[in-house]
């Protein structure tokens, strides 16, 4: 797993418009690797036709 640099970390927070304190940032840095592990667990070899679970519940108002 590649390590997140400080610049990338700051960039992602800025893109999200979030402004935590220095202490919060320091704590957050200790858990972002855990997020990457979660992401790895949902990444699978699956065909391009494997759609996400979405539901279109058309109602009278759609007609």
């Amino acid at each position, binding site marked *: 797993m590649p390590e997140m640099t400080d610049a990338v970390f700051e960039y992602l*927070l800025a*893109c999200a*418009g*979030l402004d935590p304190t220095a202490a919060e940032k320091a704590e957050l840095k200790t858990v972002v690797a855990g997020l990457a592990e979660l992401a790895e*667990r949902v990444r699978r070899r*699956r065909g391009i036709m494997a759609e*996400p679970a979405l*539901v279109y519940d058309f109602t009278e108002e759609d007609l």
Partner: protein
Amino acid sequence: MPGAIPTIAEAARQIAAKQLSPVELARACLDRVKAQDTRLHAFVLVTEERALAEARAAEAAIMANGPKGPLHGIPIGLKDIVDTKGIHTTCQSKILQDNVPEADAACAERLAGAGTVLIGKTTTHEFADGGPSFDLPQPPARNPWNPEHFTAGSSSGTGAGVAAGLILGGIGTDTGGSIRGPAALCGIAGIKPTYGLVSRAGVAPAAYTLDHIGPMAWTAEDCALMLQALAGHDRRDPASSRRPVPSYTALLGQGVKGLKVGVVHHFHETDHKVSDGTQRGIDAAIATLRGLGAEIREVQLSPLQDWTACGSMISIVERAAAYEEWARTRLHDFSERVRSRLLLGAFVSGVDYLQAVRRRRELRAELQTAMKGLDVVLTASQPTEASKIDEVPKWDLFQRPNFTMPFNVAGYPAISVCSGFGAGGLPVSIQLVGKPFQEPTLFRVADAFEKATPFRDRRPAPPP
């Protein structure tokens, strides 16, 4: 009947026979609130005047025409993320301290329509996330079995309130276990119904595609009575099911002889090994169901960690999206725990989120296949008895997989029921999972289990 606290079913029978006054019942609940809630903090707001007015109105109507159903005159609580017309709904957040909704949430409306008596708004984790938090406008709820211990969350006040008899039933919401967790640790019953069965309209979201609304009560039968009032299509909820609503009590009393129960041993024995007390409760529950005539089978699913990862990825992103505006403009008005979770949203890519949603479809298909030929599945609801309230890890999301999340991911109905008492006399529980919209079977099994075991005869001791 344990102590003087009836179940909803018992109270309904007594009210119908005019042996129990809804006003006396509401007063008894309010008296228990006054005696116990300074230590339990199950309520963020007690609506005493309104409760007594509703109880008097119920009593008058029942005396004139009989009850309109089993919930008429029954005291309940609503989690404080459920909108209530004219009554503060704060989501236990500094951000919404002055919020007074102009309309009831669908679930509040349906319970009021069934004649319930609202005792008050129950404590929640802030916006149904994080917790226990000690930096919110009001303190977290405490476990009636031992107030030094946690209730689990986020429907913590409803769990504590039902266990202590401050209310006979209440509303919880469940995004990854927020009904079943407090039900388990407080020793009561709580069901997360099939996704779409109960309208989410008017309830603050946690994660749109994982959120469920459901009842919590002392018994599975009481949950069935409440679900009967709650279930049904609501056009205000885009995920609301249009399926006809069956009778949720029709199969009660039929026992479990011949039913097939699958046990996901690897969830609680390998993937996340539960405490000795919890394991004893599970083993005894399997023996009880087998003794009642159920056929027990083994079920193999993907590791619990996969289910939890999928649900967590979806939950983190959907929550961050729902609360993005306040996170950008009022980040430090959130509690520390919710703030930390909202910040995680910045670090999950759109592709990662969509892979989780694709994974959900695969996992749901896996559960569908595994449940072919089965009526219900059994596993743990919580890994251990309740922790001390000041020893709950902040980042448990990354530290331990969650037994309840798989069925939010799949949308399948799941109920937590008490299966005994473990370390320190604290409750332990099992989780039973049904097929979509098969809540009647789930209640049938849970009710048979409760009636075959002595755990519904014991309530937490009130304070001296």
